[in-house]
């Protein structure tokens, strides 16, 4: 009876060891002094999947203008877990009337555990004034797992 009560603890310890052994995370080093003057943007979020918030936590969003009149947005994503994950993201642009401009293009970024990755996009229309960023964990539909 005593042996049976030890088994769950041993199994838990073993699984934790295997999890830690299989995951390589990223240490990030930057200059102590911030040499940038970014235009940081406050954002509002609709969270429907807390898991995505953990694997692709958006810590900072900045905007700039490129090529004279095209809006550029950049978001820094951090994988707060220890496992590498693929994240699908896309930007939809809107004009001053709130109308969608063009169709968003989906991209996939791979984030190692703990890694901070910048994602961004430049609007391909000078009429774009605002944007919407969609984030989701990649589902990886391959011919073998349909």
């Amino acid at each position: 009876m005593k042996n049976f009560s030890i088994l769950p603890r041993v199994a838990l310890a073993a699984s934790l060891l295997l999890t830690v052994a299989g995951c390589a995370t990223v240490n990030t080093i930057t200059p102590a002094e911030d040499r940038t003057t970014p235009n940081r943007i406050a954002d509002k979020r609709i969270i429907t999947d807390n898991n995505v918030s953990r694997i692709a936590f958006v810590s900072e969003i900045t905007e700039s203008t490129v090529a004279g009149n095209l809006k550029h947005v950049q978001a820094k994503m951090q994988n707060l877990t220890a496992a590498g994950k693929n994240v699908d993201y896309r930007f939809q642009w809107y004009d001053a009337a709130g109308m969608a401009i063009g169709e968003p293009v989906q991209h996939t970024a791979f984030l190692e555990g703990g890694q901070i990755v910048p994602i961004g996009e430049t609007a391909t229309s000078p009429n774009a004034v605002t944007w919407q960023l969609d984030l989701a964990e990649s589902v990886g539909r391959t011919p073998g797992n349909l």
Partner: protein
Amino acid sequence: MKSSLLIVPSLLGVLTLAGCGTPPTGAQYIDPNGQRAIVDVGKIDFQDFNSAASDLVQSLLNSNVIQQRRPGQPALFAISRITNDTDQQFDTDQLIGNMRTMLLHSGKVQTLSTVGLGQVQDPLAQQEAAKNAFVQNQGQPNPIPDYTLTGKILMQKTQAGNVNQTAYTFYLTLTDVTTQAAVWEEHKQIVKQGKESSIGF
């Protein structure tokens, strides 16, 4: 008693999760810019072309090298040789067509559709321009682009055990026709990894 109370919610949870991931049983439309498109390790999918075109256009626009030679007029591009150096047969317009559209919408670039290597994009426009020039007793119309775009698509395959990896690299160069110098060069890599699929190789 306690274990039976846990089993029912657990079963419900499993069934719910399984329902979220259930593959379609019949034909259906999907969002071409969404997550449901198939990813094939062994070939360039349409979403790879879309992503590569988008990233390359971003890089070109962000570089600020495109100059408007005529006030108020977009720069003129002509598409030069785009080489497919992969084992896959595809129309390079899947990349370049996307890029042309995005560049046109930016207002910074117009692409000459009557100038190109070999086959032009719009032979009827070329024919009508020549006819118009003849009627007006002008010389052969010969629009000169400000820039030309050339490139190459490469592929490299690797295998380790039952895991296949394919790396696709899209190289593009923008040449200033006046100086004949490359003013912008960029490459975009898409690397896919997966186990041997049940279809194909």
